[in-house]
């Protein structure tokens, strides 16, 4: 099956927007984005990471907490609070990493639009400051590097 294209744009100096279509109804996609046992199966980042902790208190004012772990036992935690929730079309939440690499709180807005049984999800990540996005660059670089190393490993063992 062909994979839907992911669009990544930077509409302003503090924002990143990702858009992707999914072959499922909106309610189902909303569930996959918000039910812990489902989120734990896909929100894993680069290869080699698992998500041992995924707690979601799905209501406005409710908190969520994610922890990822890699093969070497390194952990990365993140959490936030839900600010807006319109099931199944809109979700706004703050996002803050334990080690504060994003330089403060990030605001993540997720919008779901359904057309003929398919759902387009657009995620807007707004960083707190200009410096925050620079931190995201460093993180992206590290993560990307890790992913590349794993791919190299795969190449070597093939």
């Amino acid at each position, binding site marked *: 099956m062909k*994979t*839907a294209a*992911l669009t*990544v744009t*930077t*509409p*302003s*100096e503090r924002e*990143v927007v*990702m858009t*992707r279509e*999914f*072959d*499922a109804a909106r309610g*189902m*996609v909303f*569930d*996959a984005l918000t039910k812990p046992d*489902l989120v734990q*199966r*896909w*929100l*894993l*980042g*680069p*290869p080699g990471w698992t998500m041992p902790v995924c707690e979601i208190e799905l209501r406005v004012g409710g908190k969520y907490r994610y922890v990822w772990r890699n093969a070497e036992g390194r952990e990365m935690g993140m959490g936030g609070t839900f600010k807006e929730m319109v099931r199944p079309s809109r979700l706004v939440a703050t996002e803050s990493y334990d080690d504060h690499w994003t330089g403060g709180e990030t605001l993540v807005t997720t919008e779901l639009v359904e057309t003929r049984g398919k759902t387009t999800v657009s995620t807007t990540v707004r960083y707190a400051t*200009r*410096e925050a*996005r*620079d931190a*995201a*660059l460093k993180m*992206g*670089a590290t*993560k*990307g590097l890790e*992913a590349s190393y794993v791919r190299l490993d795969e190449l070597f063992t093939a």
Partner: protein
Amino acid sequence: MKPTSYTLDATFAALADPTRRAILARLATGEASVAELAEPFDMTQPAISKHLKVLERAVLISRGREAQRRPRRLEPRPLAEATDWIERYRKIWEGNFKRLDAVLRELKHKQKKTIDALLDEVKPKPNKKRRTR
């Protein structure tokens, strides 16, 4: 000035404008003077100069040494850094979303099985006489 920390914001800000992107596209084909750049865009030289200043501050372009024309030319590195970053970000999320596709396929399959089972229950069975007590 730290190259990565200051250029990334400046790079994205500079790239946010369509005229500046067009100027970069033009300069990708070779260096050009302010007058040469102003012509195809149907803009005054001062207007073009303003855009060029933004691009220069973001180090997306630089000025040649030729005294009279001071041709502008493309500086490829910051542009590459910016696109690299988006590429890395995209790679991570492409992985996440592929797994999400698989989760959704499974949910749809389960939903279909549930619906089929329900339909099967309400369907009249041909060989059994059912009584509603």
